């Protein structure tokens, strides 16, 4: 094995730390996906593009001279309304339909979003400078940008806050009731239409937070949304719907996989590796289930 990473053990520490911190961010996006999938039974291909849009909101603030870290508060608020509007315009017409219809419809939305972002923000790769500096560990052999630590911290904070909100608040209970049985919830007086809109809004808001964090830790580009969709989809099918600890763990696992794939296969195959992992996970689950003569549902 002639890979650099196996020769220098410190690189492994570096990759692991990077992977875990990145994975927490992925888990946040995946949590939003699990939420809407569980409640509304739609798969949102535009998830990644909502993330990127949230990132561009933070980037716009950065250009205006405001510190981009404030994006984690402003971006979810704006994105909540974007999500709400999106629900009212398109998503409410595909909720009760075949899942493939929702996939295609949100694919269309994703294309529109990509192109509009391309018009407004340009096709350059951009990053918002947080200027948080870096932390050096182990005799300066491992460098850790403070922005990554910050983003992981904020992700955990928001995830915990959302879990508590879903458990305690009235809307949270309505959302959970609708997820269990939309018809029964409707009979008992829950305005499911409103619940759906709120769910999609919350999902978009989570994407907004993640996007704002991505704008300071990684890079933004109008066309990189789809990998985020696929990552969150992957995390959700591994972890299952509505199992938050599992979402966090599989998010970190995905982050680790990506960082190691980056070192071993080379950066040019990173996205390819993510998509291949998706195929492998699905095929693995399919073979595992087919032993019991079942299939993924």
């Amino acid at each position, binding site marked *: 094995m002639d890979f650099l990473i196996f020769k220098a053990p410190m690189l492994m520490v570096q990759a692991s730390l990077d992977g875990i911190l990145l994975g927490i961010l992925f888990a946040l996006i995946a949590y939003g996906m699990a939420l809407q999938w569980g409640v509304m039974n739609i798969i949102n291909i535009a998830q990644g593009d909502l993330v990127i849009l949230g990132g561009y909101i933070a980037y716009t603030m950065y250009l205006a001279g405001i510190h981009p870290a404030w994006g984690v508060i402003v971006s979810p608020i704006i994105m909540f309304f974007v999500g709400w509007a999106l629900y009212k315009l398109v998503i409410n017409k595909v909720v009760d339909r075949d899942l493939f219809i929702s996939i295609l*419809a949100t*694919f269309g939305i994703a294309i529109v979003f990509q192109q509009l972002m391309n018009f407004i923000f340009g096709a350059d790769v951009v990053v918002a400078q947080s200027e948080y500096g870096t932390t050096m560990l182990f005799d300066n052999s491992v460098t850790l940008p403070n922005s990554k630590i910050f983003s992981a911290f904020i992700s955990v904070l928001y995830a915990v806050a959302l879990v508590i909100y879903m458990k305690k608040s009235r809307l949270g209970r309505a959302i959970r009731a609708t997820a269990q049985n939309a018809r029964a919830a409707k009979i008992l007086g829950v305005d499911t239409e409103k619940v759906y809109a709120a769910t999609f809004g919350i999902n978009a808001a989570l994407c907004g937070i993640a996007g704002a964090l991505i704008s300071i830790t990684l890079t933004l580009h109008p066309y990189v949304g789809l990998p985020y969709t696929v990552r969150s989809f992957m995390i959700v099918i591994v972890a299952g719907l509505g199992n938050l600890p599992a979402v966090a763990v599989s998010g970190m696992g995905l982050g680790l996989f990506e960082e190691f794939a980056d070192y071993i296969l080379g950066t040019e195959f990173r996205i*390819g590796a993510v*998509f291949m992992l998706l195929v492998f996970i699905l*095929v693995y689950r*399919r073979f595992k289930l087919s032993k019991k003569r079942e*299939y993924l549902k």
Partner: protein
Amino acid sequence: MNKVKQKDLILYSSLIILGLAAPYLFSAFKVQLTYLCVLIVLAMTWNLQGGEMGYNTFGNILFYGLGMYLTASVQVGMFFPLAEWTESGGEKTFVHTTAQYFQGIGVGLLVSAIVPAIVAGAIGYAILGLRGHYFAICTLGLGIAAGEIAGGIEIIGAGQGFTTPPFPAEIVDTEARGKFFYFLSFALLIGTFIFVKYIYGSRFRLILNAIRDNEDKAEAMGIQTMKYKIVGWMCSAFFCGLAGGIMGGLIGYIDSTDVAFDGREMGVFMVLMAILGGKGTLWGPVIGATLFHFFKEGLWTLILGWQYVALGVLIVVIVVYFPEGLMGWLREKYPERFGEVIDEKDRKAQVELK
């Protein structure tokens, strides 16, 4: 019965004559017509999966791109070292003679039909075991992964792309190149149409429909569903590979994500065209592809820059409001013309129930 056949005969022969005459009638639009043929082929083969079998695939683009790379690689590799060709950007150092060019493209197309079919057969058992949206997402991932991976492989040009051999310069006729690719794609279109029409009249189609309607029951009836699913996918891969090979030669330049494994354009187009025309019908994809192509070519020059926004909106509108497509709409309006007999009593009873 005889009368119906005669009508069909007139229809088909007039269409073939129109197809053969088209490059002379619309001499300036030969490239567009070639595109149209390829789009129809892609929509028809997608319809075999999405419409007939109920497996909504985004992955047929995989075979299309594979065919494109294979044809070009074989065409170059038969006569020249492939690595040097892609490194130097092609034509400057090596020149195909006329005979070499046609030999190369002939063998290349053969390979680009067979290899994707074999690939489909090889991955079919694993992938086709997935159902519904898992299958859709998995094939979407497969198509994009293929593009990303092809963009990292040095010998086929990696990120900088692959220039396919230029049309032999010895043929001075300026029209020859367009005509050659048009007739090639038209032949492919006819071949695909005959094949799909044959399938539509066969037991194979009934089995595919049974899989679509209820796979578990089909299996319980003793149909080896997996076998038929794989064969169906291999048929699609065969024609998609050929279509890709022809398009590679026509475009003259292969980029991994923008031309070959172009999930964002071609991959969505084929789904959209089949749905627009009406999936699960013989003529639906043909009509859908034709309409879509006219719409695209007519409108896209007017709204230059906004075409992707228009495309996205179009997808949403078609999918949300016309999921049954044009043929589905016609079928609802004129059920008699599709050989459906409606019992008047039954209809009245239904109305009363409402």
